[in-house]
């Protein structure tokens, strides 16, 4: 396919406003009468609220409202409403350190802070539970005392006969793998402004990855009609899953605004972001893998205990997604997946780039190396023998259309010089190489029971193309991707396109930017809209140029009749159509991802995924025996893009993912004592800085078969999925020690080295 705009590493359409400081983020907005909202949070991990005295706060000059549970709707909220378990403000019980208890609106920050400090709450402490295993013990304190146990959600998936396969296979390895809470640490913290208008409609400005579903969530919890809520996004300072589900600061700000008649802003401090902004779900995974002598993996059996924290949020959806990826990787015929999410008195988890898959892949891909070791074969070889194939349905029902797993493995292992490095004699330095594969969604999911997107395009006579899409850009670059797709299909220059995605009043209903979904879903809708607009344009041009519409060529904002050398400016045609004939030029596009035959939500399993994406990362590490530090020297990341829409941005997604993967593997963990986060600042919770990064080589592997726009797949999440197990495998290669827990800290390495000496 010859393309003008697809595939090129063109600069992002929003780069200039971002580099000049002109880009306004939600936290930059100003409006008349804006008040500062602040939340009083629980200092206790588990306690009963005996009384709250707000009188001193109310009397403070500059305070306009003080609210507690009695001032807010008392319904409960969760992502799945039928699992609702979270109050807007806690009335009777607080369940983690940070739980929302009361809130104030005041004229400025200082006053709001002082007012919060003047609220007196009398608590009766309750026994708390912080560890999932303790939480499952009979007689453990109940995080929600109306529930029978702390086990909140369980999933069981069975394909084939794992027990029989385990008994019959030639090799079995088993082990338990543990991951901990990782924080998203978007540089812009979660924040919002809420304001009611004279028609009783509520507008919320916030940094949301899914403004339409958050609009519904706000309406649901406040008990107001959905049509009365509007959500407006601005530029967003990162998302990574943290801004997918509504945060209760939205309804809190809304109630404060209602009471004061003024707009109210609430902004998380960095400490609040660390302690209440939600995390990646910690998993404890007991896994068995069995293989035959020929290297064929025949069975995998996994039990997961996930730490939900104090409330459900995205826990059930996360664990479900993990099961789908578990079933699909390597197409193992006998699979058992058993999982439960468990309440503890801690900050809850939520979606985080990779959505339960990085945890899972740490277990499966670490164990694959253990298996290779036991079998005495090269881990790369074992993987090649089990590679997913490009077409067809897996044992668990996943429909694979387009898969370049083998190509990814070959590219990554070659670039890291796998065989040379594996054969390298020890030179005294503790160096090693490791690799890991992954499968992930490259197009969101059908988890809602549907998956669709819509887009609109209008061409104006003054020379702009306005693209209205719901592909929210949280930094990953979807505005540019959508603009490129529209520009390519329509035949206009990229710079002629103006993308709007920020306002639920304007954009079509959409499930949001998550799960590497936007390129595949919204991209398809945008392509359809552009095709539609192009047809209208060709009609108008044909009329003006007295030609057949089929002979009209449109490229880079020029229009001509095939064979003719006379080129017209595209907007001249639009101008003519609009102003001489009154014919508007626009396009509408929809993409409805058709559900497979017999689809039902409970049985769909891996059929929920419209498009799978595969990838391999190979890394080289060096371990410092003195300090225990694992230094990642080099990462080669070969990931499938289907068709690359934007080379530079795809690389950027993978590089950024790898940085988060290195953090997950080696550095990042929220440390708690009695439920209290000890590292609620960047000084103590380290994320990779510029000096921590290895050399990264990104290989974008194109493949055919997917139904994405121009054949593209989403690339937002995959890059983080295999990084940690690749590092753990390289560490094993370097020092012969297998770590079953992340992050692999210096202390762990030193301890392990001591034991081996």
């Amino acid at each position, binding site marked *: 396919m010859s393309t003008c705009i697809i595939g090129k590493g063109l600069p992002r359409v929003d780069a200039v406003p971002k*580099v000049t*400081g002109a880009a306004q983020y939600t936290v930059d907005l100003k409006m008349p009468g804006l008040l500062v909202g602040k939340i009083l949070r629980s200092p206790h991990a588990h306690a009963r609220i005996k009384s709250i005295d707000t009188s001193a706060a109310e009397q403070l000059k500059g305070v306009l409202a003080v609210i507690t549970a009695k001032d807010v709707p008392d319904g409960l909220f969760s992502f799945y409403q039928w699992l609702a378990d979270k109050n807007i403000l806690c009335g009777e019980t607080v369940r983690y350190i940070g739980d929302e208890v009361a809130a104030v609106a005041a004229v400025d920050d200082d006053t709001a802070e002082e007012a919060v400090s003047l609220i007196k709450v009398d608590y009766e402490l309750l026994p708390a539970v912080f560890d999932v295993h303790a939480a499952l013990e009979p007689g453990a304190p109940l995080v929600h005392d109306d529930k029978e146990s702390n086990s909140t959600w369980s999933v069981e998936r069975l394909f084939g006969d794992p027990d029989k396969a385990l008994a019959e296979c030639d090799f079995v390895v088993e082990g338990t793998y543990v991951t901990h809470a990782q924080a998203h640490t978007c540089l812009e913290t979660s924040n919002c402004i809420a304001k009611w208008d004279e028609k009783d409609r509520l507008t919320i400005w916030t940094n949301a990855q899914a403004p339409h579903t958050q609009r519904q969530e706000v309406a649901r919890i406040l008990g107001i009609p959905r049509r009365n809520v509007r959500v407006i996004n601005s530029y967003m300072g990162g998302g990574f899953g943290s801004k997918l589900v509504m945060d209760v600061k939205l309804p809190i700000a809304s109630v404060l605004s209602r009471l004061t008649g003024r707009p109210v802003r609430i902004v998380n401090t960095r400490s609040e972001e660390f302690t209440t902004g939600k995390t990646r779900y910690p998993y404890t995974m007991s896994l068995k893998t069995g293989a035959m002598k020929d290297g064929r993996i025949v069975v995998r059996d996994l039990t997961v205990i996930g730490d939900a924290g104090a409330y459900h949020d995205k826990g059930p959806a996360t664990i479900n997604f993990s099961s789908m990826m578990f079933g699909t990787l390597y197409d193992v015929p006998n699979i058992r997946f058993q999982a439960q999410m468990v309440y503890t008195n801690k900050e809850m988890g939520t979606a985080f780039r990779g959505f339960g898959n990085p945890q899972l892949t740490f277990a499966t891909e670490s164990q694959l190396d253990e298996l290779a070791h036991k079998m005495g074969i090269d881990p790369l070889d074992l993987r090649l023998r089990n590679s997913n194939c490009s077409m067809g349905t897996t044992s668990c029902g996943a429909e694979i259309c387009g898969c370049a797993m083998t190509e990814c493995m070959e590219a990554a292992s070659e670039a890291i010089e796998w065989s040379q490095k594996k054969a390298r004699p020890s030179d005294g330095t503790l160096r090693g190489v490791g690799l890991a594969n992954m499968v992930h969604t490259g197009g969101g999911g059908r988890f809602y029971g549907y998956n669709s997107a819509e887009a609109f395009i209008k061409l104006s006579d003054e020379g702009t193309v306005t693209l209205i899409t719901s592909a929210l850009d949280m930094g990953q670059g979807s505005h540019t991707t959508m603009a490129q797709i529209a520009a390519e299909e329509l035949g206009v220059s990229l710079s002629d396109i103006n993308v709007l995605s920020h306002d639920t009043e304007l954009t079509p209903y959409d499930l949001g930017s998550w799960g590497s979904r936007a390129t595949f879903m919204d991209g398809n809708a945008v392509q359809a809209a552009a095709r539609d607009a192009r047809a209208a344009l060709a009609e108008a041009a044909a009329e003006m140029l007295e030609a057949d519409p089929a002979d009209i060529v449109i490229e880079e904002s020029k229009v001509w009749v095939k064979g003719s050398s006379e080129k017209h400016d595209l907007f001249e045609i639009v101008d003519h159509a609009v102003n001489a004939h009154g014919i508007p030029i626009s396009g509408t596009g929809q993409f409805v991802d058709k559900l497979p035959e017999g689809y039902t939500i409970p049985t769909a399993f891996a059929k929920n995924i419209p498009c799978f994406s595969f990838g391999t990362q190979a890394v080289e590490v060096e371990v410092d025996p003195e300090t225990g530090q694992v230094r990642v020297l080099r990462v080669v990341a070969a990931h499938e893009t289907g068709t690359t829409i934007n080379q530079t941005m795809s690389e*950027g997604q993978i590089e950024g993912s790898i940085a988060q993967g290195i953090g997950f593997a080696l550095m990042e963990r929220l440390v708690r004592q009695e439920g209290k986060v000890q590292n609620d600042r960047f000084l103590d919770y380290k994320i990779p800085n510029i000096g921590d990064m290895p050399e990264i080589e990104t290989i974008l592997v194109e493949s055919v078969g997917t139904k994405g726009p121009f054949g593209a797949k989403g690339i937002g999440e995959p890059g983080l999925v295999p990084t940690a197990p690749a590092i753990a495998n390289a560490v094993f290669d370097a020092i012969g020690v297998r770590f079953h827990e992340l992050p692999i800290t210096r202390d762990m390495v030193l301890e392990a080295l001591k034991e081996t000496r």
Partner: protein
Amino acid sequence: MKQELLITVNGDEHHLLVDTRRTLLDVLRDDLGLTGTKNGCGAGECGACTVLLDGEPVNSCLTLAHEAAGRDVLTIEGLSSGGVLHPVQQAFVSQGAIQCGFCTPGMVMTTKALLDRNPDPTREEILAGLRGNLCRCTGYVKIVEAVEVAQCLLAEEELV
């Protein structure tokens, strides 16, 4: 307690009445409306709030507004002139060193200061110079490339 403050920001003189406890970051963002400078932590740990004070990079969240009295402040808004991007900005755009952009103003200002001080830094010096600026999106690969490209662009400018 409020005190008079005479401060030059991006070449404009401002005469303000500012509480002595307030930070330069707050005054830039709230009083002068220069929201290009970002607050990522408010504690000197992320670099998003970096501005140049008499040419030296400072974390404006840790700098009291009154410390900038009588001095020259340069923020991201003052870097491009007449619609032409500064070479550091051009390099960040062309290399794809920007994703969400929230760290970008701080990164760009730190880079400018680094290259002003040392027009020909080694890779190690670049890494050392940008250590205090956190980015959660890019993995820094393209940021390093952007600094190196900016270095070349500035060197070319010198020649003309």
